[in-house]
């Protein structure tokens, strides 16, 4: 779909690493160039036309994000540098002030490092406990397993909507319901979810959501922190500085701005935010429903073609997203990636930042194909053709 919009796709290249980051359509690149070229002023600063236009565009991007995730209030949308920063703000700005020693946080072994390491530090510093929701035989999270992992001390469930290795979709709405019945907060790492399917934070009822622009046709260095307004009000800014204060006559009399500005100190990635707004408009035009449906078709096509190949071990045959993870018998994942690279096919090898998954899946490293709407059935044919010939893989991997 929409391949003509991506300058890179005119080249002889097959890009299957969308889980790492997506390609950028020309309209997003143009939008950012337009900012840098024609109105490169700062936000909230000047009483002149250029700066006024910046504010308009910047705040329009916020409204586009709000509408995209169906949040209730504009103030609930904070621009950050990405999922990682958003998660760190949630953990260190909100939960560090709320949790007490022996409170428990539930995560899973397939979380991304960005949803583990901030919690680990809190565990070291404050003595909270990190517990793991056991995964089922497909590496899925089920409500039953969560129920078993709950204790009277559980205060937070912090999980990815879609994991970056297995690609399973977690039943977030049911998880939120169960959590809220037990006075537990839910933090949703949406890095792999928001780019691929329609999302409605009100319907899901999540307390916090983090995601990145760069995985959804937007620029790098921009992300979103969404939080329910009444919670976000209590999120303490970690970064202090220009733009987030009303007045500061002396140390005891600092008055901070309202949300969301209070959480956006310093000059932001203005071009990035404006470009992100354009990316959302672009995705809306295609339709998130269409994107999701098409990715599932691509996935099914790929799985059906890989299944007969005896030397391919698919880790996640069952999964409802565009992520397919596999190994080639007796060939190290990185060698597979190098082999495919010789034919201009980009895939990712390694542990995909989900380092503790090893204990669950039992393999350290995998090859990952992560699809997006601009991938095609023909591209999958090319990939499968190269993977079909085991001798060729072994011969050409170095």
């Amino acid at each position, binding site marked *: 779909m929409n391949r003509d919009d991506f300058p890179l796709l005119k080249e002889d290249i097959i890009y299957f690493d969308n889980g790492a980051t997506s390609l950028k359509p020309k309209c997003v690149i143009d939008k950012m160039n337009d900012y840098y070229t024609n109105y490169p002023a700062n936000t909230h600063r000047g009483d002149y036309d250029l700066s006024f236009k910046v504010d308009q565009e910047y705040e329009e991007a916020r409204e586009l994000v709000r509408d995209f995730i169906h949040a209730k209030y504009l103030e609930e949308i904070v621009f950050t540098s990405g999922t990682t920063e958003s998660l760190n703000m949630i953990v260190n700005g909100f939960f560090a002030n709320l949790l007490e020693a022996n409170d428990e946080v539930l995560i899973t072994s397939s979380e991304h490092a960005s949803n583990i390491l901030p919690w680990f530090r809190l565990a070291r510093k404050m003595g909270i406990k990190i517990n793991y929701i056991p995964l089922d035989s497909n590496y899925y999270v089920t409500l039953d397993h969560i129920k078993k992992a709950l204790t009277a001390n559980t205060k937070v469930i912090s999980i990815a909507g879609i994991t970056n290795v297995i690609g399973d979709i977690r039943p977030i709405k049911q998880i939120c319901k169960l959590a809220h019945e037990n006075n537990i907060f839910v933090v949703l790492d949406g890095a792999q979810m928001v780019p691929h399917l329609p999302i409605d934070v009100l319907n899901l009822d999540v307390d916090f959501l983090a995601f990145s622009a760069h995985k959804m046709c937007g620029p790098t260095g921009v992300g979103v922190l969404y939080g329910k307004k009444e919670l976000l009000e209590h999120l303490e800014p970690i970064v202090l500085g220009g733009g987030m204060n009303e007045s500061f006559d002396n140390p005891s009399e600092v008055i901070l701005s309202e949300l969301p500005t209070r959480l956006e100190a310093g000059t932001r990635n203005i071009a990035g935010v404006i470009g992100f707004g354009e990316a959302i408009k672009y995705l809306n035009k295609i339709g998130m429903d269409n994107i999701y449906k098409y990715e599932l078709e691509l996935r099914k096509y790929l799985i059906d073609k890989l299944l007969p190949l005896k030397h391919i071990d698919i880790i996640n045959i069952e999964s409802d997203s565009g992520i397919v993870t596999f190994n080639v018998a007796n*060939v*190290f*994942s*990185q*060698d597979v990636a*190098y082999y495919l*690279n010789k034919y201009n096919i980009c895939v990712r*090898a*390694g*542990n995909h930042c989900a*380092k503790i998954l090893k204990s669950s899946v039992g393999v*350290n*490293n995998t090859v990952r194909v992560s699809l997006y709407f601009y991938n095609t059935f023909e591209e999958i044919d090319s990939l499968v053709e190269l993977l079909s010939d085991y001798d060729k893989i*072994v011969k050409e*991997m*170095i």
Partner: protein
Amino acid sequence: MDKEQSREIIMENYLHPQNRDLPHDGYDAINTRNESCIDNINLYIKWNEDILEDIVFDGEACAVSISSTSIMIKNLIGKKAKEALEYIKEFYHMTNGDDFNQELLGDACCYLEVSKQGNRKVCANLPLKGIEKAILEKIK
């Protein structure tokens, strides 16, 4: 050394690496891994004074890293610390694309072409980085 010969040496050392074994008593352990943490190799070194008497390894890594570890082990066992450092330096010269001493490196010259591809250089250098660290530690 032509491309096909290089490939054969690499594959032979990947499929049948020298001294891939568990550590024994009296060996110093050193871990070496690359930035993305895919290649992860443990080296175990037995010293006799300043001579590398024995080296074994275990771990998980790509064909280039494993074979390079194997070849390095073959070529360094029996060398004095200083000689080993000389060898390592020449290896880096080769993978950096600089002039290097072909005679000294022997079959390790098989990485000349491979190390020009993407970050395969990092994979080829990986075991040498590990042993270099261990040697520098030893003669400190």
